[in-house]
């Protein structure tokens, strides 16, 4: 029975509003505190990473807990997490551009391993964000899932980008550890001896 609470919980505005909270905080800090764009590049990138990790964790989590309703709720909104990750990556890029102050400065850093890995991750995410809608899913049919597997190399590039650009092995690994753990379980289960079911992609 549709109660007001249930329809609020299932409506799109709620989860988009939740996904926008960290962005609102970043924008608020930009305008109200004595901060440079430099100070907000890191936090915006961390949110992009967290959301891509969350989106990718949902497949192994739904295999692990097929009946959990919370996981089901999240899985139905997985495209939104992916699109939000891309939006945070764009915010991250905008703040980086503001820090660098000129296109020339941005281009000068492009060959650095810590920088091009970030650009590559963003470029891989672009077609995914553009096709994260019902009509693209219908048009691409089975190709949609194949295309969206690009999220895995994108996530790997995000991890390398974070580690290299920030010299921050531990923070980056902590963020990616839940996904790495779930994916290794999934691979062990696919190729290991006690295989029972064929898992979805």
């Amino acid at each position, binding site marked *: 029975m549709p109660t007001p609470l249930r329809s609020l919980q299932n409506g799109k505005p709620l989860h988009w509003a939740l996904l926008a909270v960290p962005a609102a905080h970043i924008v608020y800090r930009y305008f109200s505190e004595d901060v*440079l764009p*430099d100070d907000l590049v*890191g*936090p915006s990138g*961390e949110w992009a990473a*967290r959301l891509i*990790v969350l989106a990718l*964790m949902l497949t192994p989590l739904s295999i*692990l*807990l097929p009946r959990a309703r919370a996981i089901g709720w999240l899985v139905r909104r997985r495209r939104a997490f992916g699109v939000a990750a891309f939006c945070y990556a764009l915010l991250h890029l905008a703040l980086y551009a503001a*820090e*660098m102050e000129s296109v020339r*400065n941005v281009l*000068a*850093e492009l060959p*650095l*391993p*810590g*920088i091009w890995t970030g650009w590559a991750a963003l470029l891989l995410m672009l077609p995914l964000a553009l096709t994260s809608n019902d009509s693209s899913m219908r048009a691409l049919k089975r190709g949609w899932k194949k295309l969206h597997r690009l999220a895995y190399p994108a996530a790997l590039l995000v991890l390398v980008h974070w580690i*290299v*650009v*920030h*010299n*921050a092995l531990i*923070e980056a690994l*902590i*963020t990616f*550890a*839940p996904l790495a*753990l*779930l994916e290794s*379980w999934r691979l062990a289960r696919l190729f290991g001896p006690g295989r029972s079911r064929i898992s979805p992609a």
Partner: protein
Amino acid sequence: MKTHLSLLAAACGFAALAAAPASATGRMTCNAGPQSGWRTQAQLVERLTRQGWQVRRAKVDGGCYEVYGTTPQGDRVEAYFHPVTLRQLLVSRRGRVIFRARGH
């Protein structure tokens, strides 16, 4: 089921850690004694500016002075200086170390 639960617990634990904002860099430490013996940040910034640097931000990190700015060569970098001698200890450009003082 037991493996499932421990796997989930581990995943949740890491997720909770990941939700905390990353801080404290610790790429360099200076054992420079009490701050009363330090030269001021203003002195460092003044010296760097005279050398052609553009300083965006200076702060204390790991007991050293840490500066975000642009070198005279035009590279956006993060650099560490000893607070007593103002000696340059480490310069890193987007994670690539372009200068490291001997012994540091």
